[in-house]
């Protein structure tokens, strides 16, 4: 600095001379006020203000450059003792089991340098077949969560395990001595080891019971089978065998029981080919618009109360076809069914009957009588043994609502000495919280195993946090005879303890979870595997593979018992609105409420993020003069329950149905108030004192021994409040707004659709007319793609819109979470979005889902407008985005016809050190002011290329899998080298269904789509055209 000042004082350097000249010019400018009037500006030869600023500015800039000498000192910590097999910087995959829900899909945990980073589906797994849903893939966010419990609590304060164990053991002893009862409540437990540990723990007490309460119960299905088949079990539905599939409300592609497995199975029968133009026929009866309904060939809106009537009618029809005599009279035309529904059901019955032994009827009804009717229909159709497997029943939902209701009674008697709750938030998930709190007050010992202080844990005297999945040993048996292991992939981060260890300790056994699992496997699992010899070998092989097939337990099932069928009840017309409670695809259980990825994942149908809402059909909304975002008060008088939620207008919903998602309004979600960037106009994601969404469990009710998710007689009232929804529905629209569209161009063929009948006649049916010359080229062909030319084909007939790919992309590519306020400003950062289109008025003609990502155009419009060459074309056909070159003009985003570019308006928070462990080290964390977009997982391409080159072999088809492709439960995405004539993508591109979105622009995208085919007759097609 001193030198620079010296320089300034003696040598008038060039810069300063220029400045001085400018000053002189300014002086001679007649428009400017005379400087002489301003004493500070008078040039008196000495150091005046201007000269000081000149000198200071110059010297500061020089000093700044001079200061750029060294990057900060960085420490590299190698392992003190390297674990065998671990190579620094290399991803290794461990076979495990997903514990995101009770479906227990196969999981490959990608770990790098000792930390799990990426959850992927296990391709060999017999159920999930390589897919993994959004929830399973979002696990890293929950694993690296700094706000979960890291140590046990006593009375809300951190305590040591030793003290807590002492007290709990003493309390349990007194329970035993006083002969009081013990109740253990959990959600479905698929782990045979944990089940055995719970049973042996409860065996110590005279009156002890394990009660299963599911977040969404399927209790009625189990109860119905107990009556019709003599065994309380959940059958294993084999959707891949079903040619005709009729679902009454079951959202099996979204949230029902085992969505990944069902999606994979459903997809198997949905792909018609030229040689074999056949696909399954899927009819959905439902009140709200579910993900499954949006993918059905035929979707019929019904009120939940009508379901019984429909089932009776269907059963009667099929009974006639089957020649089965019913004791009750058939009502050929029930008075409450309008004419259309009656004929429709006749049609459905006929199709079901034609596909006898290859058809399936499903229902998510919680009315046991309705489920008995479903069983009866399936029995007549010969589904049992064909599309329904009772020999290897499912264990994915074991909830028993009758026992839950009994528990509430027991608690009130005051005879319960100990209440232990694991993996469910009892007070959050059940209605009538006040009386529940009152009942719990009588229990002397309350223990929660919750991972965080949820609603019930805050009431419990002791909170003994269980390890997170991926931190502990466990196992699962989702289907009888299919057992998988869950292995830890990192050390527990806090002083948490596996529930296995806690329960063993309180049963006076001090064992590690590893020993407990191994002991159970040695004693109970190994004998069920006849081929296995040595235990260690059996264990090692299973651990490596992840799962093993065993002889199923003997299930005593008797033949269908028709006597339990009840004669039809006289139907009553329901009053008011019917309320349907459901769970969102992104939020199946309240324990995921702390996951910001899932909270910001738009619902596949409504596209709303951050919280729940009440949805209503467009007609009724118009009738009542309601607008989207109006806060409505929903009131169920008989339950004294009310809730205030914003309105979402949902086409395709039944006019008398309201729908609200459960699993919101969880304790602790206040933490998201400050998520997103901090700036002047930032608004909190969660209002002060509020949570993300509201808990709708208050509307649940017990009826005839099951927890009901729908109720009628609900009223609606508009409040004066409004709340803007954080919905991504209309963001990044690529349709031409009708008011500015040139004549005849208003409708762009973004989604191309045809019917199976038309496809059979002409495989290219449904193609848009080409109005352009595909050979015409403005640019010279100067981008030869000699080596590889990467491309992608997405089969829209397989894609269900489940959004697993969005989370896969977010996890792989370090896509930030922006918060509700930024989402409202159209600034969500997802590189891959799923566009949802409604066809026809009120979505009557169907819904289409289209994953939209950077199309990597050969003639990319973004490239030509970038003034700094920040987006360029690679020699392999990729449209590259170079963050360091980007100056943020956003010209590229404006010129992108697909609207897939995302701008970093802010430096998105990366200050949570623990959460940063979930970042992929191979992908740059983008800073403020740069554009970003899908890179086609170029880091994976490079990784695969290097691996192949190092092995001295050419890159084979399938070596590179993008994150979205890997995780897709429906295997809808094909990625590969379009230059490779033997590749899967080359074959996919020859598919007659293939088209490119906005092809008429001739930007030559590398991503193409396969047309939607609905199993409908051509009449529908003509209707549409008309």
């Amino acid at each position, binding site marked *: 600095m001193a030198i620079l000042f010296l*320089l300034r004082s003696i040598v008038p350097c060039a810069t300063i001379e220029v400045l001085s000249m400018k000053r002189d010019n300014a002086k001679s400018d007649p428009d400017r006020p005379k400087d002489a009037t301003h004493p500070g500006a008078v040039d008196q030869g000495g150091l005046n203000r201007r000269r000081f600023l000149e000198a200071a500015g110059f010297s500061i800039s020089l000093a700044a450059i001079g200061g750029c000498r060294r990057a900060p000192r960085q420490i590299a910590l190698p392992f*003190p003792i390297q674990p065998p097999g671990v190579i620094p910087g290399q991803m290794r995959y461990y076979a495990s089991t997903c514990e995101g829900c009770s479906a227990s899909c196969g999981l490959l945990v990608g770990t790098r340098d000792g930390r799990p980073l990426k959850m992927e589906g296990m391709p060999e797994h017999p159920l999930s077949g390589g897919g993994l849903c959004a929830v399973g893939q979002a696990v890293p966010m929950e694993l690296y969560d700094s706000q979960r419990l890291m140590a046990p609590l006593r009375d809300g304060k951190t305590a040591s395990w030793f003290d807590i164990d002492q007290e709990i053991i003493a309390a349990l002893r007194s329970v035993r001595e006083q002969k009081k009862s013990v109740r253990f409540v959990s959600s479905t437990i698929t782990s045979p080891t944990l089940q055995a540990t719970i049973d042996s723990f409860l065996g110590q007490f005279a009156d002890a019971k394990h009660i299963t309460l599911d977040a969404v119960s399927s209790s009625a299905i189990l109860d119905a089978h107990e009556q019709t088949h003599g065994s309380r079990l959940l059958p294993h539905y084999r959707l891949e065998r079903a040619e005709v599939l009729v679902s009454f409300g079951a959202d099996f592609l979204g949230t029902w029981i085992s969505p990944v497995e069902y999606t994979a199975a459903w997809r198997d029968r949905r792909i018609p080919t030229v040689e074999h133009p056949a696909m399954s026929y899927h009819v959905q009866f439902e009140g709200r618009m579910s993900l499954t309904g949006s993918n059905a060939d035929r979707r019929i809106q019904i009120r939940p109360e009508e379901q019984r009537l429909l089932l009776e009618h269907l059963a009667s029809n099929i009974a006639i076809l089957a020649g089965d005599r019913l004791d009750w009279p058939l009502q050929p035309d029930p008075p409450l069914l309008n004419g259309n529904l009656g004929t429709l059901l006749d049609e459905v019955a006929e199709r079901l009957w034609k596909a006898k032994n290859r058809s399936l009827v499903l229902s998510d009804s919680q009315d046991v009588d309705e489920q008995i009717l479903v069983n009866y229909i399936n029995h007549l159709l010969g589904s049992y043994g064909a599309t329904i497997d009772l020999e290897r029943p499912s264990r994915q939902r074991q909830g028993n609502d009758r026992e839950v209701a009994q528990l509430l009674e027991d608690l009130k008697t005051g005879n319960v000495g100990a209440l232990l709750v694991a993996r469910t938030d009892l007070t959050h998930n059940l209605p009538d919280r006040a009386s529940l709190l009152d009942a719990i007050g009588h229990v002397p010992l309350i223990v929660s195993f919750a991972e965080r202080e949820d609603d019930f844990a805050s009431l419990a005297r002791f909170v003994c946090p269980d390890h997170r999945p991926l931190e502990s040993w466990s196992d699962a048996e989702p289907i009888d005879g299919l057992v998988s292991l869950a292995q830890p992939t990192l050390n527990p981060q806090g002083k948490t303890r596996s529930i296995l260890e806690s329960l063993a300790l309180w049963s006076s056994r001090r064992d590690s979870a590893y020993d407990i699992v191994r002991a159970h496997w040695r004693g109970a699992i190994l004998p069920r595997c006849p081929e296995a010899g040595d235990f260690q070998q059996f264990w090692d092989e299973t651990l490596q593979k992840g799962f093993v097939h065993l002889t199923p337990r003997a299930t005593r099932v008797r033949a269908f018992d028709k006597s339990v069928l009840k004669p039809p009840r006289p139907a009553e017309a329901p009053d008011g609105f019917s309320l349907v409670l459901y769970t969102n695809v992104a939020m199946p259980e309240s324990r995921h409420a702390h996951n910001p990825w899932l909270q910001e994942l738009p619902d596949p149908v409504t596209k709303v993020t951050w919280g729940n809402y009440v949805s209503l059909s467009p007609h009724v909304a118009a009738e009542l003069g309601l607008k989207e975002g109006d806060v409505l008060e929903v009131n169920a008088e008989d339950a004294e329950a009310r809730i205030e939620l914003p309105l979402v207008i949902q086409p395709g919903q039944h006019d008398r149905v309201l729908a609200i998602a459960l699993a919101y309004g969880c304790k602790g979600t206040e933490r998201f108030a400050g998520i997103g960037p901090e700036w002047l106009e930032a608004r909190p994601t969660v209002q002060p004192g509020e949570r993300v969404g509201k808990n709708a469990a208050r509307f649940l009710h017990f009826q005839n021994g099951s927890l009901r998710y729908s109720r009628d007689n609900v009223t609606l009232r508009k409040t004066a409040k409004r709340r803007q929804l954080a919905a991504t529905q209309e963001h990044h629209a690529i349709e031409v707004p009708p008011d500015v569209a040139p004549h005849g161009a208003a409708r762009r063929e973004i989604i191309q659709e045809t019917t199976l009948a038309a496809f059979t006649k002409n495989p290219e049916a449904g193609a848009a007319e080409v109005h352009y010359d595909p050979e015409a080229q403005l640019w010279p062909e100067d981008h030869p793609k000699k080596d590889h030319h990467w491309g992608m084909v997405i089969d829209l007939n397989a894609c269900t819109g489940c959004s697993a790919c969005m989370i896969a992309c977010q996890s792989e590519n370090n896509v930030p979470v922006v918060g509700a306020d930024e989402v409202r400003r159209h600034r969500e950062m997802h590189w891959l979005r799923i566009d949802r289109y409604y066809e026809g008025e009120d979505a009557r003609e169907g819904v289409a889902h289209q994953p939209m990502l950077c199309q990597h155009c050969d003639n990319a419009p973004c490239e030509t407008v970038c003034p700094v060459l920040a987006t360029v074309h690679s020699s392999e056909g990729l449209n590259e985005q*170079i963050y360091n070159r980007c100056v943020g003009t956003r010209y590229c985003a404006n010129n992108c016809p697909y609207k897939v570019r995302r701008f970093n308006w802010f430096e998105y928070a990366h200050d949570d050190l623990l959460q940063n462990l979930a970042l992929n080290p191979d992908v740059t964390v983008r800073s403020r002011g740069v554009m970003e977009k899908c890179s086609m997982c170029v880091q994976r391409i490079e990784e695969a290329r*290097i691996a192949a080159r*190092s092995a001295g072999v050419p890159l084979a088809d399938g070596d590179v899998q993008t994150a979205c492709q890997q995780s897709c439960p429906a295997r809808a995405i094909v990625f590969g080298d379009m230059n490779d004539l033997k590749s899967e993508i080359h074959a996919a591109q020859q598919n007659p269904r293939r088209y490119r979105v906005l092809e008429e622009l001739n930007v030559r995208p590398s991503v193409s789509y396969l047309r939607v085919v609905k199993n409908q007759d051509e009449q529908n097609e003509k209707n549409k055209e008309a």
Partner: protein
Amino acid sequence: MRSRLPTTNDTPAMQQRVITIVLLIGLFFSLSLLVSGMSGWRLPDDQQGYAPVQPIAYSHRLHAGELQIKCGFCHSAATMSQYAAIPSSDVCMKCHAFVTASFNVMREELRLADETKNLLAKVEGKPESEIPALTKQALEDLHEQSDALQIPSDQLKILYDSLGLDDQLQPIEGKTPKSIPWVRVHNLPDYVCFNHQAHVTAGVTCQRCHGPVETMDRVRQFASLSMGWCVNCHREASERGIDGHPVSASINCTVCHH
């Protein structure tokens, strides 16, 4: 009267010349000061020549140079992973479980052993009484001296300490192994991904980028590691190949930046 002062020949031209000379001298001094001050200046992020002090004064000259240990013996990840990786402490123990003293001491030990051997050869076969007292004394001295050499070197003590071992290389109870906090010499920014495996398996020698590490006591950054430097090498390699065999070193941006 032209002036009140005697320096009447002080014309404006003369004054200007003096000022010019003074300014030129000033310019010379300031430039020389500036040049010397800026010699350490470089473009932002250019770390060429950076040679931080490490927690253990590990010498590559000794290990890779004199003892000719191959680079891949310790940096074994380089052929398998994007990182060459600093070896874990247990890799050091492959040798240093046996070699516990510093190199100079080892040399001294060898010298003592040679001397002892020579002396013993002299006295071999002679009866006890015939061995001169001086030789006996020398042998005893040698023995004592080599006893004194058994103490591990200061530098190796840091290694043993990190592994929770005492001077006798026995585990110290209650002490868990800890990583040695090595200071990174080659720091690429986070937006660049350099993959060692790709380069090593393509035949690029370690020295091509890291310089003559086998001559360095303390490792310093040899090359500028700037993007231009990388791209030039990629172009050159694609044109001429590496060691005569053709390679395709892409210059697509996303090869390194993703």
